């Protein structure tokens, strides 16, 4: 069984936010909800300061804190490592949000559901269609799902996630500089495994012991 993971080359990333927008579009995310972010920070002091650009998303951790604390088993991990939320089981206790060291989860409340991209002008057709295709439930927690629909559909059609665009997450496909690489972490021959080995891929905050499936190289 594969374990899907991602490698992000932070040297390549130009902070265009293409991934952020592609993700919003793919999942019809309402205003103020981001499953993909591009963090911009600084390190050091002038004249040796350095700009840091880190695209972040759910890390689909192998030892996910969110899965562990969920009292209803609404947050679960598939065999391929993708961490998902079953909206029909979520009681809205938000323990998963609090326990995530990466803060990649959002509580979907009535304010978010009612939010309009053009306030006071009613919802656009895009938003109305989105609500039908992605019927998030008020009072539950939502998060990045590694575009599992694309991955599953792609595999069904005989495609290979990470190689074929139709079987890869939207953020990977849309990245104009190829900074995101998706693939099977269990396969030592996959591009992601090779990049992690060759370029000494790092996980964000490994001290929490969550073993993220998203690696960064530079």
């Amino acid at each position, binding site marked *: 069984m594969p374990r899907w993971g991602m490698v992000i080359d932070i040297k390549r990333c130009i902070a265009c936010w293409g991934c952020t927008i592609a993700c919003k579009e793919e999942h019809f995310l309402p205003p103020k909800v981001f499953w993909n972010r591009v963090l*911009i920070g600084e390190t050091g002091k002038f004249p040796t300061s350095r700009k840091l650009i880190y695209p*972040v998303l759910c890390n689909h951790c192998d030892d996910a804190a969110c899965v562990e604390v969920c*009292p209803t*088993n609404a947050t679960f991990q598939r065999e391929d490592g993708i961490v998902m939320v079953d909206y029909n089981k979520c009681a*809205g*206790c938000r323990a998963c949000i609090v326990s995530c060291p990466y803060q990649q989860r959002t509580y979907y*409340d009535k304010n978010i559901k009612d939010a309009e991209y053009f*306030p006071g002008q009613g919802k656009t057709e895009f938003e109305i269609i989105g609500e039908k295709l992605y019927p998030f439930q008020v009072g539950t927690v939502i998060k990045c799902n590694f575009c599992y629909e694309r991955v599953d559909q792609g595999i069904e059609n005989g495609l290979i996630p990470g190689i074929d665009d139709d079987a890869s997450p939207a953020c990977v496909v849309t990245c104009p500089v190829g900074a995101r690489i998706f693939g099977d972490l269990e396969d030592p021959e996959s591009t992601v495994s090779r990049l992690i080995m060759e370029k000494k891929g790092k996980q964000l905050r490994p001290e929490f012991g969550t073993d993220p499936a998203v690696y960064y190289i530079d």
Partner: protein
Amino acid sequence: MKQKIIEFIKKISSPLKFIKTEKMGNKQNIIKSVKNIFSPSDSSFKPYDWMIKSTPQQEWIKEKGIFLWLAFFFSEIGAGLYFMSMFFQYRLGLILGWLITLVLGGSVHMLYLGNPKRFWRILTNISSSELARGMWVILVFAILGFFQIFTAKFNPFLNCMLGIICILIIMHGFATMNVIKALPSWNSTMVLPLSIISGIWVGSQIFQFMLSVSGSLASGFEIWSELFLLVYIGLIVFYLWGTFHSSEAAKKSINILLKGELAKGFYIGVIVLGIVVPLFFTLIMWGGNVNAGLIFFRMVFVFAGDLALRYLVMKSAVYQPLI
């Protein structure tokens, strides 16, 4: 032909006109729309500076999160009252403690949940979730407590069982917070001892007040109150000291409490209301001058102080920056 071209231009320009005049209205509406997407008033919604510095925990204290703070408080003081009443075989205290824990604590817990109708599902993941374990403990407490109150049985086995269950309920809120490694100030070793003593301390104050009102001898219990207060003060100091020295993010949390934006609340709420004033009343009663009025006022201040402490511990927790 000319007419057709004019019509065509009108047709293609009409949606633009519509957008300009009706959809957007004016410049202010455009700004409002952009603000709605990248709301600058709340940094949590900026996709670019999220978690690049220490980020405060909000879900369990902001907006509906307030209910969780109150729920933990009620469950714990109810269990504390039950615990003390059981030792003194004081049935009225048992009933009140049982009711506070289950009715007040339980209902406020429900108000917090996003989907209260699914609360029963919280019982399903006992293997790894502290919340699920807490729910089971409360369920067992409801059954055994009801049995004890009805039968007025105080045999050592039942007392021992319920004593352990009460301690577990007292710890429940902070234990749920304590397992969260992402928030080092909650993950501190001193959180659990502090929660146990604070639950017992507040519960014992209600118990002592009930004793004094019912005409029983509350002065005999005063020695316990003095002891609990001293231990409570000691554990607050240990919590601050131990947490401060545990990690960078935890140090940041304690700095927020002692020197930062929550400092006023800490000094007024925890130090003055929760420690100095109760200490003052305790010193007045030191020589045996124990009366219901003084006990009542001390209880009110202890309540306020403990609520403030719990609020501030929840509010001051911060996540480590990601980059």
